[in-house]
């Protein structure tokens, strides 16, 4: 079972990202379950969404404490919380940022993508917020191959018809192309 933790801020679409990854995995014959962290919805506040993916149906509902993958939708979250808390050794971290985070140090792989710029380029902005969820899924696919990028694009275009669907799938594809791995400097393997 693969456990993914999405760290986002209200309005960025982290919950939808978690749902889409489950839908896409299901298309590939895998089972999944996605859920948000709960509370009153607050724009801009930090929130988590979770997804579990497996070859067999999943029926475990406890929160995710030791994720295999952490996806960070906003660079500001790096100041708010320890994003690698509980990360399994050798796990992957994907961050939406325009600069390489200098002081991150953990046992695993770090990938970065400037999803915010991609969304601004494509005018994927709702109420002043770049909605980076579909872009970050492209990055997730590149970094981990949990789901194939083509399946993701298909899933996105099924969820949103017409131009908005096209824009989102473009964001996903561009992020897939532009995601790269950063070699961690002072890496200490535990």
């Amino acid at each position: 079972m693969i456990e993914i933790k999405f760290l986002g801020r209200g309005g960025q679409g982290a919950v939808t990202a978690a749902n889409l990854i489950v839908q896409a995995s299901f298309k590939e014959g895998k089972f999944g379950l996605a859920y948000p962290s709960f509370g009153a919805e607050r724009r801009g506040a930090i929130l988590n969404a979770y997804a579990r993916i497996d070859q067999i149906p999943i029926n475990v509902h406890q929160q995710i404490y030791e994720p295999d993958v952490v996806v960070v939708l906003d660079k500001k979250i790096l100041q708010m919380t320890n994003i690698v808390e509980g990360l399994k050794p050798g796990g992957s971290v994907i961050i939406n940022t325009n600069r390489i985070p200098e002081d991150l140090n953990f046992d695993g792989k770090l990938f970065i993508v400037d999803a915010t710029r991609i969304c601004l380029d494509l005018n994927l902005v709702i109420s002043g917020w770049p909605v980076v969820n579909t872009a970050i899924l492209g990055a997730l696919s590149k970094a981990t191959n949990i789901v194939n990028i083509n399946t993701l694009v298909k899933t996105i275009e099924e969820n949103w018809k017409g131009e908005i669907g096209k824009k989102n799938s473009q964001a996903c594809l561009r992020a897939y192309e532009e995601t790269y791995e950063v070699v961690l400097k002072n890496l200490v393997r535990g």
Partner: protein
Amino acid sequence: MRVLIPKSKPSKGAVGKTGLWRTSKPVVNHDKCIKCVICWAFCPETTIFRFQDNSVDIDYEYCKGCGVCANECPVNAIEMVED
């Protein structure tokens, strides 16, 4: 006997440091400010400090960056800048 009572005491930031929710922040230009305190009156989260001489400043720990103050300022002395 010790009893648990669910009291809510008046305090700042019942849901934490709400300043972290911001994407842009208001910045006061004190040269332009005419000390009318309209921003102070309109701030929905009471995150504007009002001093004795009616000059104002922003409490960035709790300001959510909604922009109401910048919108209401009659002399455009408050600007929203990316945080």
